[in-house]
């Protein structure tokens, strides 16, 4: 039985069919959500939200694309919106830690960031549209066709964004990459 048929059954109220769809897709979705969010509670929230929204929108799934692709387009949208919201909060709340930065006193010497920290900083610094394509293609192995459908862009756009993302990473990382290339 295909995912298309399960989707049809789920649309008719069969929860077991939806569970099969969940089992078939949850690993990929959760991995991508985690790559995007970097925090387990956010990745869980986004994954759950994506499946719930998919269930609510099953009527709109016409089967033109694979169910998995359709689900990914929902998940990516949920994650991007959720991350923007989380980012707004981080800026607005600026937590307790900012207070310490304003206090008088000696500034402790900052140790040089390691390669891992530099990689994280560089990837985090990519604009969303480049970062998403980079994570999907280079880290999670999605093809440009899938990425294009999930993001609602042309395949050429996905390729161009990936190329731009890599160029920006090369720029940001510079000498750190020499250790690996």
């Amino acid at each position, binding site marked *: 039985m295909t995912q298309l048929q399960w989707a049809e059954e789920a649309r008719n109220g069969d929860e077991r069919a939806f569970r099969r769809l969940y089992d078939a897709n949850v690993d990929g979705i959760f*991995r991508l959500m985690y790559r995007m969010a970097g925090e387990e509670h956010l990745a*869980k929230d986004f994954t759950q939200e994506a499946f719930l929204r998919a269930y609510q929108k099953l009527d709109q799934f016409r089967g033109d694309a694979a169910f998995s692709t359709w689900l990914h387009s929902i998940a990516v949208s949920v994650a991007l919106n959720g991350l923007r919201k989380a980012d707004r*909060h981080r800026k607005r709340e*600026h937590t307790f830690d900012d207070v310490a930065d304003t206090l008088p006193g000696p500034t402790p010497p900052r140790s040089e960031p390691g390669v891992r920290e530099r990689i994280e900083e560089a990837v985090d610094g990519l604009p969303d549209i480049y970062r998403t394509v980079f994570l999907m293609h*280079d880290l999670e192995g999605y093809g440009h066709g*899938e990425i294009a459908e999930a993001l609602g862009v042309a395949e050429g756009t996905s390729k161009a964004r990936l190329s731009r993302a890599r160029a920006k990473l090369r720029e940001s990382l510079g000498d750190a990459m020499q250790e690996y290339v």
Partner: protein
Amino acid sequence: MTHHDDGRLGPEARDDLGPEWLEAVRQGYHPPPATPRETMWEAIEGGLRPELEGTTHELIAEPLVDGAVVDAPVVAIGRSRARYGGGEVLGLPRRWLLAAAAVLVLGIGIGRWTAPDGPLTPQPTGGAPVAERPEDGGSGLAFAARRHLARTEPLLTTVRADARSGRMDPSIGPWATTLLAETRLLMDARTGERDDVQRLLTDLELVLVQIVGASQRGSQDVGRAREEMDLAVRSLEREELLDRIRTAAPSTMSGA
């Protein structure tokens, strides 16, 4: 450059960045843990159930038409009650207050114990507890506030999941009551004069009041209790409380 859509990396990836470098990114940038399948399914199933039973989440999802009118009677449970009067203190039975105070004192104690001695210095990154100015009420209170906020997250998550599935767990009431008492003690203690934290505690207090109110009504009028719990969840979502709590106090601080 060529691109392959048939699976993993295309050759241009190797040409551009090098396989070792990409492997380093793959392993070092947010490497995903094992998928918590069952935990997530439980939450999703909770959300599906009302749909399958023919009801919807509209009450939770739709925007509040008139927040002031809808919220007023519920909020009044906590606000209009004599907060320092009669047989109740802060609007709560004394035993809850004592339990909350004990937790709070413990939190402050841990904060004092873990706070650095001598002059305060900036912390390089977030995550670790950071001391406040001693004259602001002490680092112990700031730590206790963050710890307290982290401890409210599981309650709020449970309430939201329950509301989605139409359940009402009877243990929510006492749990929320204790946390409400603690929240009010921290509000009154003015934890370090930080506006954002005070605002967060105030918003949290209102949601907890709604949850406590709904729980108290639970045994007498189930329908009304559900409506009030839905209102609490709407306040929770409208104020984006969970996101703000997670930002201010990572769950690793909960001590759970």
